[in-house]
């Protein structure tokens, strides 16, 4: 016992270990340096600048006449009924599309776990395919299929023709389920078979198994998909970027901001509007994360090997 203690003391590697750790950290910093520099130059500073812009009456064409206007841009938002209506419209749009995307993807993923389905690989690619079609194409395809729908369904039934872009919203949402579908499908595939077997022995039917076994087991994937969909809906980075439809945005708030930015070139106010949208989005996301404790069954935290 004493010997062990002594030997341990004898080979005290504390000092060299510290320098080794320091060296490791230095090399680590070197590797993440590109992102850190990019973060400072292209994210942190622009974000700070946007914050400053939102407090000024900044105009792109004449930056030298910019003056500080305090919070008046934000106060202006609260009096701006059009902006409020746009934000509300965007929110209700997300309230429709985010659950729609999630539920369709979830149901499809559940069907895909069935061993009875044939040609899964090919079908999976077909379902995923629509999510990489560029926005450029989607818009034209949508307009074209409206015409055909009119010809084939609405005219024979003597219904008024479809007007406007209202349908584009659910259409785009349905054609964006790819990543969520893949995430949840693979989560379902990785649920251990014994759990289903145990549930079956206990007399659980297919629906009971889905609601009481599958859903809780894949709840982290559902949560992740929700966060991804929400981020994408609010204009954050997405896995599969299909670009923008010019002169037309699915999100009325985004369109309003773009209009303020590019047409009226009122950049100060546009920045303030973007911040308000971001605040709303963050509130929703935080709410989602808070609620996660109640319904997401996170796997036990394993030590992330010091990182």
């Amino acid at each position: 016992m004493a010997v062990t203690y002594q030997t341990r003391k004898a080979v005290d590697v504390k000092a060299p270990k510290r320098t080794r750790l320091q060296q490791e950290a230095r090399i680590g910093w070197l590797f993440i340096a590109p992102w850190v520099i990019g973060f400072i130059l292209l994210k942190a500073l622009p974000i700070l600048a946007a914050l400053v812009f939102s407090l000024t009456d900044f105009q792109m064409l004449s930056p030298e006449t910019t003056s500080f206007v305090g919070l008046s841009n934000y106060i202006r938002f609260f009096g701006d009924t059009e902006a409020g209506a746009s934000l509300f419209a965007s929110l209700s749009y997300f309230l429709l599309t985010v659950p729609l995307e999630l539920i369709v993807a979830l149901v499809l993923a559940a069907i895909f776990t069935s061993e009875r389905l044939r040609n899964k690989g090919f079908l999976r690619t077909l379902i995923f395919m629509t999510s990489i079609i560029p926005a450029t194409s989607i818009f034209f395809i949508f307009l074209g299929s409206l015409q055909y729908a009119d010809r084939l369904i609405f005219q024979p039934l003597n219904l008024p023709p479809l007007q406007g872009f209202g349908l584009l919203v659910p259409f785009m949402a349905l054609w964006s389920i790819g990543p969520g579908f893949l995430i949840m499908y693979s989560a379902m595939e990785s649920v251990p078979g014994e759990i289903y077997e145990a549930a079956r022995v206990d007399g659980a039917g297919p629906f009971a198994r889905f609601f009481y076994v599958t859903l809780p087991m894949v709840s982290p994937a559902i949560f992740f998909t929700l966060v991804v969909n929400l981020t994408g809906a609010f204009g954050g980075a997405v896995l599969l970027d299909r670009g923008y439809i010019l002169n037309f945005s699915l999100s009325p708030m985004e369109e309003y901001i773009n209009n303020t930015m590019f047409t009226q070139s009122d950049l100060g106010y546009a920045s303030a509007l973007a911040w308000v949208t971001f605040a709303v989005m963050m509130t929703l996301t935080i709410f989602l994360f808070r609620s996660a404790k109640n319904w997401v069954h996170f796997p036990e935290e394993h030590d992330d090997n010091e990182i």
Partner: protein
Amino acid sequence: MKFNRKRSSAEGHSRLSLRLWDFTGTALLNLFMFLFLIAYLSPLPFMAIASLTPKNQFLDANAPILPSTRMKFNYEGKDLIVYDVPTEDGAKHWALYKPGRKSSQFIDPQNPQAGVITWEGSWRTLKAVYELAPTLDNFREFLGVTKLPLWFKNTILVALISEVGVLFSSIAVAYGFSRFRIPGIKYIFLLLIATIMIPSNITLVPTYYLFSGHMLNWIGTWLPLIVPHFFGSAILIFLLRQNFKSIPRDLDEAAMLDGAGPLRILISIILPQSVPVVTTVALLHFFYIWNETRMSGLYLGVAPNLQMISFGIQRGQSFFFTPEALMVGALVAMAVPVLVLFLSQRFFMQDMIVTQIEK
């Protein structure tokens, strides 16, 4: 003995019904999926049909769905339109020779020697006869109006150059995040995740200002589309890092004992095991560049010769007026990503998921 036989027969019966039930279930499930996919993908065949449709067919309310033209009959050097004429002997396909208000003169294409037939009634109530006529005119027109080869070349160039940058730095950064003990790295990584969620609207104006004539003067060049990628992309770093973390450390520890440096470990141990995820990331970046419209619109609007494909086609909306030509544009814009997806589906789809689940 008797008991045995009885049991086996019962067993056989239940097995048969079970198999029947199994078969029905399988058939129903596959049928459902088939029908769902037909509905889900139905806009695509319509798009293909529309792209082959002759001009102005959309304006003709009586025209069929498939690409077709009015049937014509050449009589004495003139193209006569064929109509569906109801006669006492049933409906006949006759070519209209001389229209009149009360009666019109027709030619029977089957028997032109018989000469002019007079038909009583208003020819305006008659329906034209159509024949199937898919055409490539829309494609020709589209190629004539747009600078497709130039856009294609530009897109590929931008994609390749930025691909190199984004792969180099994202791999390096992901390696840094997955293998090194840096104090507080957990929070730095959270910061990285946070940048994914920041809407591009917020940074758009300051970034534009940075690239504009006020500071860097990069407008009208590819630099704003390429240079940012050399700092890595947060979402790709996230994917790579999750994957790198799942590679056991035993191998790199062994290599370290053999005297391999961090770069050596990355190149000869981590990367060979990460070919699928690196390919996935490379493809994601390619899709991003191909589909990208906002940056190319903002920064390349003044330089038409540097313009890229998605923006070019989308802008063309105002130039190639007919819906058929628009469909050609849609088809061209989506053809490459879809093709790339199908060629790479094997590991692209598989790897995208595995890496994400762990949060």
